[in-house]
């Protein structure tokens, strides 16, 4: 092996910084899944009858479904009876304000770089902190409420805004959509709820920070974002988990609804524990994310930076139903060691003059496998639909793999479809070229990787773009950053 390859190899080996656990007493359900567990979760959350019925319907459907196997990721069969479906930090009453939140929890988020005290927070970012199965705190709630914006945990929304939840829950991802979505619908514990009323432009970034803490626990959160006519919201989620030898399942569902002229920007920086360098442990990140551009001129953009998880398997998608609606997907997926990723998007064009853009950047290092899988579907009434897709893969070292599977289904001949794909190897040539101009190897790798991802990073809100760049540095370069 050449020196450069060795350098890349050392640079790509780095420690997971968020691998510690918080010692806090938890209130958990026993492992296993049954109607009783579904009832237990619903009862714990004091849910109305209709929601329990909805969960049970999903559960019964799930029992009839087969776990899918068409994906390009491989893992041992999951024993669904060995997972804890509910775990929450023990509290007597729900805290009324941040002052009542367990200091241990606040310290946890502080350590993760997410201070929850409003005065210490990043200006202009409201955070909902989700710890295992429940939301522990939501900041800036009152300030947002002044403009009629609802930002709270999903459980709160069920109690406080049942009509809204009932109207939109499952309207984009039905309870029977797929194996993991059905599972989530049966056992989801918490998540975030966002509602931006007509004509309101949300003045700050909304953000949810997901933390898995307990062992053996699965995380099944549900996020629902509704933007009414002419509303705008930018939302970001971040995720971490402790280092554990077993794999843990994270099967979330995210639903977005944009009405006429509304715009939703959804950004993810995913850094679940990826497992160790021998492929032991790590999170299975099997998530269903879908947005519906229900109204005319609406727009939904997904931006994701996926660096963590043992397996990432998700396709944030857009249903472009309203005429002139726009869907966007910008993704950076980094895999290292034994990580696997099979990610991409689905752009379903139904309305006239709908437009979609897909920019996917895959970086594979170590012995990892990185797959882009994307579907562009043009319905037969979708006159003048347009799509542009660009899928670039970068290989670091010679033991990893990159795969691209674009699917096209065109039922209307007025469509304009463009597809570009590249595969390149970072390595001796580029690094030597930089060295020869006087630039060190470490700086060179940093420069090359960030250059490669530039088109995606510039879609992230500024604060998070910096975070994402750093994260990429940590995932790939170790000593840089």
């Amino acid at each position, binding site marked *: 092996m*050449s020196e450069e390859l060795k350098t890349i190899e050392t640079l790509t080996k780095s420690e997971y910084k968020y691998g510690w656990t918080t010692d806090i007493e938890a209130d958990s359900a026993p492992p296993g899944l049954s109607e009783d567990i579904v009832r237990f979760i619903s009862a714990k959350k004091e849910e109305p009858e209709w929601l329990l019925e909805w969960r049970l319907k999903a559960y019964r459907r799930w029992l009839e479904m087969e776990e899918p196997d068409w994906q390009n990721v491989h893992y041992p069969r999951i024993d669904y009876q060995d997972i804890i479906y509910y775990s929450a930090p023990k509290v007597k009453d729900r805290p009324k304000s941040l002052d009542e939140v367990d200091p241990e929890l606040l310290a946890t988020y502080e350590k993760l770089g997410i201070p929850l005290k409003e005065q210490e927070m990043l200006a202009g970012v409201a955070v909902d902190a989700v710890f295992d199965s429940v939301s522990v705190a939501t900041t800036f709630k009152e300030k947002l409420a002044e403009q009629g914006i609802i930002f709270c945990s999903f459980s709160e929304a069920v109690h406080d805004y049942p009509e809204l939840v009932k109207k939109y829950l499952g309207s984009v991802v039905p309870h029977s959509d797929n194996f993991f979505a059905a599972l989530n619908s049966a056992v989801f514990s918490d998540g975030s709820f966002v509602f931006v009323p007509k004509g309101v432009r949300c003045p700050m970034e909304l953000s949810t920070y997901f933390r898995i803490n307990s062992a053996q626990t699965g995380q099944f959160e549900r996020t629902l974002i509704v933007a009414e006519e002419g509303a705008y919201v930018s939302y970001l989620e971040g995720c971490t988990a402790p280092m554990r030898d077993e794999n843990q399942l994270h099967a979330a569902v995210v639903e977005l609804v944009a009405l006429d002229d509304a715009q939703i920007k959804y950004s993810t920086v995913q850094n679940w524990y990826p497992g160790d360098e021998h492929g032991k442990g790590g999170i299975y990140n099997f998530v269903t994310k879908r947005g519906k551009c229900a109204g005319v001129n609406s727009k939904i953009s997904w931006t994701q930076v996926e660096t963590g998880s043992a397996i990432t398997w998700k396709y944030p998608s857009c249903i472009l139903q309203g005429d002139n609606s726009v869907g966007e997907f910008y993704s950076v997926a980094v895999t290292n060691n034994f990580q696997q990723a099979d990610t991409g998007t689905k752009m379903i064009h139904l309305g006239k003059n709908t437009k979609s853009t897909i920019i996917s950047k895959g970086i594979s290092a170590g012995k990892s496998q990185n797959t882009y899988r994307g579907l562009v579907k043009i319905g037969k009434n979708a006159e003048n639909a347009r799509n542009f897709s660009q899928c670039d893969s970068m290989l670091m070292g010679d033991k990893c793999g990159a795969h691209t599977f674009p699917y096209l289904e065109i039922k209307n001949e007025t469509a304009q479809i463009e597809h570009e794909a590249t595969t*390149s190897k970072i390595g001796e040539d580029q690094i*030597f070229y*930089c*060295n020869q*101009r*006087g*630039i060190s190897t470490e700086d060179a790798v940093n*420069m090359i990787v960030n250059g490669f991802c530039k*088109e995606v990073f510039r879609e992230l809100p500024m604060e998070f773009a910096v975070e994402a760049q750093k994260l990429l540095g940590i995932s790939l370069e170790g000593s840089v950053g």
Partner: protein
Amino acid sequence: MLEIKNLHASVEGKEILNGIDLTVNAGEVHAIMGPNGSGKSTLAQVLAGHEGFEVTDGSVTYEGKDMLELSAEDRACEGVFLAFQYPVEIPGVSNTYFLRAAVNAQRKYHGEEEYDAVDFLSLVKEKMKIVEMDEKFLNRAVNQGFSGGEKKRNEIFHMAVLNPKLSILDETDSGLDIDALRIVAGGVNKLRSKDNAIVLVTHYQRLLNYIEPDFVHVLYGGKIVKSGGKELALELEDQGYDNIREASDSAVAV
């Protein structure tokens, strides 16, 4: 400036340089010619510090220092420049950003203050004129989407900005049409001075009609088998390398 003695180098156990001796003084232009596979590009890359090649014997002294001890980036900072035969693309990194990172790395090495973006831009715009380059190339990613000729011109542009003492031009003329060749050669001639030295590695004699060398060397079988003035290049173009081959192969046989 540069003294190469008995240089041997190999890749994956296969010897490619087989005892090179070459002395280059400040103010001189040397042309190194030779048939395919004679070791020309290897010599250029070994001098620039490519780690894919293993130096098995011999020495390279540059400005009184043992050059083989220096890393590729340190050699660059010491003023050694290689114009690549196949300039590398770096997507998403603009030409200006890249060059500023390079110039500042070199300035830092010498304990000098780094350039800010504004000062650097005016320096760069000055240097672009040397290779008649359009300003749009500043904001484009390094070598990405450049035609072959544009890539080669960009190399000479880098050379102009970095202002090296020793420049090694590895087949910078290959694949150029006459107009591009004139521009590239014109740029090199403008950068030629009594304080710096240039080594031209080339496959085609044509280049030497535009850049007049002080010395011409013929590389064959990893060794310099013949040296002379400019007329040697013309001789080679007329007669090809067959005479050289025969002469040196028979010498080996004896």
